[in-house]
């Protein structure tokens, strides 16, 4: 959508390592996840992304007078499952509340959310950074509705200030939104930016595993607000925090924390006071700028939503949901690591490369774990890197990769040919076996064709043959080379050598 630009004014920043000599960071994260339910939170409208503006609306999500909400049971279930996956306590009785404020993208003049009676409380998520585990405490997981989307037309920033006029798309209004709020996370020190990123990464993976959302940050189905504060080393009190919004990628989460630490340190160093404010993150420069300070003055006048009955999830049902949770990412990683005999570091590489699922699927399709890893972290990683895409975006499926490893193992192709087969697969020429056929890439067996090539090589280099026969066996290499060249690499070197030996020695 709108391109955000950093303001021209540049902030004074303290060198990152320098920050840590004087200050301790405390971070906190508020993550919003749009649930992947068929219909909206309080009405039957579709939630499909990308439809024509205002085509997925009805009296309820437009907030027309007289309309009333009805809670989406599937969304409640998803929220409880997320809570369970984060080790939360599921409230036996919970209520929706109205958060009252005026903004054009909230049609009712209030957002239906939860306040002091959320569905899930008191959980945690352990994340690993450089082999060390950090526990992130989860304060609450609650359910609410998304707002509409404003499009500010005119003006340089794409934001409301300076815009000529604004358009509102209510397709998004009322889509179920789960908010996951951490408690403040102290003690991460220099790793704070990475812990923040690791937390969002892990959370994203959990929600993906649960199938609760497609968690696509670029489409906004996972959105993150990052809180950062600094306190002098040894201080018992935490500093004033800022809340950075518009953090739309995992990398940005890390950068936002890093930037705020450096900026706040400069403010504090200069004897200033960090303002409690909302700040906007700018992808292009990796910097933050102040948002509207007006938001701080808002009194949301929360009160229990009288149009909805309390949520009172039955204990038995909650137990059933807990029992039905899929294997969570951390457990899965441990299991696979053991099954595949990897070290912790090797596993971390695999995860960081985004290759875990791909390798797992490749293994499931018949490859050995070692082969699968070798391909995804080697040749395929190189191709993805060259093309500037994610591994998962390559036009090759784990099943095709598995087939490729099988072709190599059974000797149909050698490594070099296999790379050519991959070219064919990536070019959309079909599965590896079809590419081998179509391109004629199979290794030549002990065929007449190969025999002829071997004979030709012998006939073409009597001097070499003489050397070999005189006992200088290593000279045979030249003949192997000649055969390989003649067959354009399509022969198996060991086979060629054996055939040469049979004929010459």
């Amino acid at each position, binding site marked *: 959508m709108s391109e955000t630009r950093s303001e021209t004014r540049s902030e004074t920043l303290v060198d990152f390592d320098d920050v840590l000599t004087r200050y301790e960071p405390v971070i906190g994260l508020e993550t919003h996840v749009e649930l992947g339910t068929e219909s909206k939170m309080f009405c039957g409208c579709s939630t499909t992304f990308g439809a024509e503006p205002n085509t997925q609306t009805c009296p309820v999500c437009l907030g*027309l*007078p007289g309309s009333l909400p*009805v809670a989406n049971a599937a969304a409640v279930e998803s929220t409880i499952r997320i809570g369970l996956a984060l080790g939360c306590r599921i409230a036996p009785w919970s209520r929706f509340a109205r958060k009252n404020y005026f903004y054009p993208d909230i049609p009712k003049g209030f957002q239906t959310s939860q306040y002091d009676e959320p569905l899930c409380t008191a959980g945690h998520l352990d994340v690993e950074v450089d082999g060390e585990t950090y526990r992130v405490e989860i304060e609450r997981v609650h359910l609410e509705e998304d707002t509409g989307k404003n499009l500010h037309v005119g003006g340089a920033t794409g934001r409301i200030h300076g815009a000529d006029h604004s358009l509102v798309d209510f397709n998004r209004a009322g889509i179920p939104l789960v908010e996951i709020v951490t408690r403040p996370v102290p003690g991460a020190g220099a790793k704070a930016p990475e812990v923040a990123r690791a937390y969002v990464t892990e959370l994203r993976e959990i929600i993906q595993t649960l199938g609760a959302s497609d968690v696509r940050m670029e489409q906004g189905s996972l959105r993150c607000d990052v809180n950062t504060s600094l306190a002098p080393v040894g201080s018992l009190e935490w500093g004033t925090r800022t809340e950075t919004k518009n953090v739309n990628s995992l990398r940005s989460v890390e950068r936002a924390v890093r930037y705020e630490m450096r900026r706040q340190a400069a403010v504090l160093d200069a004897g200033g006071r960090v303002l409690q404010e909302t700040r906007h993150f700018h992808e292009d420069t990796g910097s933050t700028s102040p948002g509207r300070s007006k938001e701080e003055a808002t009194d949301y*006048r*929360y009160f229990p939503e009288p149009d909805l009955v309390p949520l009172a999830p039955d204990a038995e049902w909650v137990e059933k949901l807990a029992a039905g949770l899929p294997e969570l990412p951390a457990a899965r990683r441990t299991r696979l690591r053991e099954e595949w005999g990897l070290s912790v570091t090797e596993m971390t590489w695999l995860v960081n490369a985004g290759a875990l699922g791909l390798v797992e699927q490749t293994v499931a399709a018949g490859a050995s774990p070692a082969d699968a890893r070798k391909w995804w972290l080697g040749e395929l990683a190189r191709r993805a890197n060259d093309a500037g895409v994610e591994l998962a975006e390559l036009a090759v499926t784990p099943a095709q990769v598995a087939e490729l490893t099988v072709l190599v193992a059974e000797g149909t192709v050698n490594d070099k040919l296999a790379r050519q087969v991959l070219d064919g697969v990536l070019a959309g020429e079909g599965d590896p076996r079809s590419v081998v056929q179509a391109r004629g890439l199979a290794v030549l067996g002990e065929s007449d064709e190969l025999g002829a090539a071997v004979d030709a090589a012998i006939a073409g280099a009597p001097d070499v043959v003489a050397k070999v026969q005189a006992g200088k066996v290593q000279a045979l290499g030249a003949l192997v080379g000649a055969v390989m060249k003649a067959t354009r690499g399509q022969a198996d070197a060991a086979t060629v050598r054996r055939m040469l030996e049979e004929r010459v020695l």
Partner: protein
Amino acid sequence: MSDLTALNVVELQQALSSGETTSVEVTRAHLDRIAAEDGTLGAYLHVDGEAALRRAAEVDASGAAGTGLAGIPVALKDVFVTEGVPTTSGSRILEGWRPPYSATVAQRLADAGTVLLGKTNMDEFAMGSSTENSAYRPTRNPWDHDRIPGGSSGGSSAAVAGRLAPVALGTDTGGSIRQPAAVTGLVGHKPTYGSVSRYGLIAFSSSLDQAGPMARTVLDAALVHEVIGGHDPRDSTSIDAPVPTVVEAARRGAGGDLAGLRVGVVRELGGDGAREGYDAGVLERVAEAVALLEGAGAEVREVSCPSFGLALPAYYLIAPSEASSNLARFEGMRFGLRVGDDGSRDIDEVMALTREQGFGPEVKRRIILGTYALSAGYYDAYYGQAQKVRTLINRDFLAAFDDVDVLVSPTSPTVAWPIGARVDDPLAMYAADLCTLPASLAGVPAISVPCGLSEGLPVGLQVMAPALADDRCYRVAAAVEAALGAPLTDRLGERAA
């Protein structure tokens, strides 16, 4: 055929099913009367005669007229949204809005084959007890044109009492069906909270609003109640239970036998030590009605509900609080009025100007009151405390219903007052709800049934019952009606003649 507008619903059913008349004739008779009288009465905000006659002709053609409510004209308080039909809730801020959908109760009435005559006047957003807070026009009481018809459903009460409609729907948040029914000589019932759908009812106070019938007889009210009641999946607060057998109860009560029924007279509502602000004539008529109940075999005793005295302050915190939030959607962006959008003002200014010009003084007063009561730091002292009072009132009801089957009181402490008498005194206006508020806060059903005249003006008896026991209200009301003879509104007709 005699004047069709003089017939009640049951009589119209007979006339229609026997073929004596048609829905078109009945509808035209009412439209003619509206044309003749409504210039004075001001009961309606919107009438579409052509549409009504078209609809009536359809019902006649279908052969259904006279079956149930088919072919019977009805009026709806303008708080109910009606697809394609202007709906204002009595406010300028919704002027010109034609909703794209219909309220569940409006749909149920339409499905039953009723003919919509029009939308009736009301206090703006149902905030008021006199209909003087309508942004469009005052409504006059058919019994005395210089007096108020009650409120906020005063358009509906005036229409039905004045024979501009056989029946109408009203809504009751703190008494807005019962009090106008009482002061115009009608039967008005506020059902158990959650037993009639609120979907499509423009919200004033969500935890209190209930739609209900207003009619000239108890049985007419019951017939309408039966059609609009029952679970609605679009309203989460709607109770998934069968509609109480109100029609049967009304018929049974008309037999006049209340043997074994225990009736509690609420001391705090006009009894010993609580008579200040009550008209002597009102208390006399109510006492006579209680005596009639006793004569019908009921066991009468006095019951004390000490928390009822707190109902008024609690109500005037809860209702404005919810209203301040419910009315936030009227910001001039998507429907109704928009003021000041000339390209020079930003959205906050346009919203403010729209609300400034679109809302009347009483609505603004309550928005401000509610906004304050919900503010950080005040919530516990006001909204939170009021909710506790609500619990206390509920307990009083539960305790009382351990001993008695129904509770009775005056519906309104006074008869209809002169137009303008209380407009500058909001507290005096609020006091009109004194007797009706407890049942609203507890969500229990309550009916107002005429019990005679005082100074030539109607007096209502209120009958309250436990939640979901709406049938008891109808039974007792029907017994009172039977004991008094003809419906009170018949006297209005005689007087006019």
